[in-house]
């Protein structure tokens, strides 16, 4: 995608409540007896990349559809850019750009014509942004080709351009990395960060945990329609507990020696001299080390494990699964 940026006029957040662009209170959606979103209380602060994580069926897309007024909540409230929905729908959504599920277009129209159609409903200034946005997402050369001839990656980029037509303060992107090759994913990551740098808020729904971790500042984890964790990415990942890798000459004896000092100790597959242990609460890594040395075990390696969001996500969702 082109590095050039369009001239933007992102408005200050004076209309929003305490710089929160999105708030939901007890937001619930039921389809018959099935509850897809259950009493969701979500807060998305302004000017950040916010990741919405969850396994399939977690309710991410339904949540986004309710936020955009595409489907009505069963109960609960939504405040978007400081405006209560649905009363403030028109004004609120005028400041929002969104891709829901996959970006869809009139396939018989060109990329440029699709943007012109989308610009027509967004008011006069949007029409003037069509050409710069095509340039920004790297589609200027293919702008006059039919959208039906575009690859999925090109349609994602055209979808981003369509999102930006209204110069939105909040972008909601549902699985924006879907169908992109590694270069496309990298471009999308840079684009999202550049949008945040411009003062916009970008909410990204994704199941690509690694990408969310690399792209987002904050994350919310949904499971079966419920919010199970929310906060800065680093904090969510860290909350999983500290672990340490121990390389030693006698792992079997080390496990026996450490029994009193650790919550868990297991061999790392593929390396017979390596253990992954979780120290018990109050036990420091130094104490673990001393125990082994005093027992005559030669410690060759002692390395803190950096918890990833993926591990934390799987830990949380599997724990919930086990609890059922």
């Amino acid at each position, binding site marked *: 995608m082109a590095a050039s940026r369009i001239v933007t006029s992102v408005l200050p957040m004076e209309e929003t409540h305490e710089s929160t662009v999105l708030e939901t209170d007890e937001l619930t959606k039921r389809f018959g007896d099935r509850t897809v979103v259950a009493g969701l209380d979500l807060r998305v602060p302004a000017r950040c990349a916010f990741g919405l994580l969850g396994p399939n069926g977690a309710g991410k897309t339904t949540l986004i*559809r309710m936020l*955009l*007024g*595409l*489907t009505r909540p069963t109960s609960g409230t939504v405040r978007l850019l400081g405006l209560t929905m649905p009363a403030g*729908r*028109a*004004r*609120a*959504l*005028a400041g*929002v750009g*969104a891709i*829901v599920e996959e*970006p*869809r*277009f*009139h*396939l*018989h*129209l060109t990329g440029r*014509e699709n943007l*012109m*159609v*989308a*610009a*027509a*409903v*967004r*008011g*006069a200034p949007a*029409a003037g942004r069509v050409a710069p946005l095509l340039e920004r997402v790297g589609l200027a050369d293919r702008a006059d080709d039919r959208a039906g001839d575009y690859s999925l990656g090109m349609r994602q980029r055209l979808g981003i351009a*369509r999102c930006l037509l*209204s110069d939105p303060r909040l972008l909601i992107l549902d699985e924006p990395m879907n169908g992109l090759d590694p270069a496309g994913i990298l471009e999308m990551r840079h684009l999202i960060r550049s949008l945040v740098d411009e003062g916009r808020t970008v909410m990204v729904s994704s199941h690509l945990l690694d990408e969310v971790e690399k792209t987002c500042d904050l994350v919310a984890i949904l499971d079966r329609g419920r919010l199970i964790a929310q906060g800065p990415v680093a904090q969510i990942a860290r909350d999983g507990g500290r672990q340490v890798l121990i390389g030693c000459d006698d792992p079997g004896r080390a496990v026996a020696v450490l029994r009193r000092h650790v919550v868990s100790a297991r061999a790392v597959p593929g390396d017979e001299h390596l253990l992954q242990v979780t120290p018990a609460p109050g036990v420091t890594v130094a104490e673990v080390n001393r125990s082994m040395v005093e027992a005559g075990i030669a410690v060759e390696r002692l390395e803190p494990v950096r918890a990833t969001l993926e591990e934390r996500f799987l830990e949380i969702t599997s724990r919930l699964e086990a609890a059922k």
Partner: protein
Amino acid sequence: MSTGIAMIRADLLKLRRRRALMAWSALLFAGAQLLFFGFGAVRHASDPAHFGPAGGTHGLVNALMLVSYLGGVAAVMIGTAAGGGDAAAGVLRDLVSSGRSRLALFAVRLPAALLVVLAFTIPSLVVATGGAVVLAGQQPVPATGALAASALAAAVSIAVTTLLAVGLSSLLSSRSIAIGLLLCWNLALSRVLEHATSLGQLRGLLPNAAAERLVPVAVGGAYTVAMPVAAAVAVLVGWVAVACVAGAWRTASRDA
């Protein structure tokens, strides 16, 4: 340019760029007229004793019937494309999430579809009325007033069909079902009901019976269902109103 006009222009663009639809519409509207009068003129020229002139009042009646039937088919296709095109393409959710009123999204489909259909209807009516005059031969030429009234009646009939198509396809989730229902109604069921004398005056509520009432007697002959012109207009307006309200309600209330 106001947003409303820009939206109508956008809907016009969506329709105009459907090349196959535009080609078929041109064929059904004007192509059918050219074929009809061309074939009739050649046949008359080759054997005047057995085949009368292609034009005249008789030719006009047949030409207008072609406009009504074949043009009606094209109007259904254009109207359903206008009414259901956004939903079928999956674009409706983007339009809705722009914050624009759903009623406005529906409303702009109506003038867009009408403009496209009239762009085909007017030339075909020019060919129909022109052919009736130029190719009248020894037959009496229909009076100017009768020509104009007949063309107007045909245009109204096509416009009503178009608006019904926009409304019904906005109401239903499937464009193909809307096309099937409308063609079945226009080409078969409503014609059968119009001639079902057991229905009595109820037949006056049929849109085709009302549209026929607008054709001058000098051209169309005796009416199958007699009714005042005002009643015929009211019936047509009623059908359009019901279809549009239903389409607008569905566009406003459906999950996008």
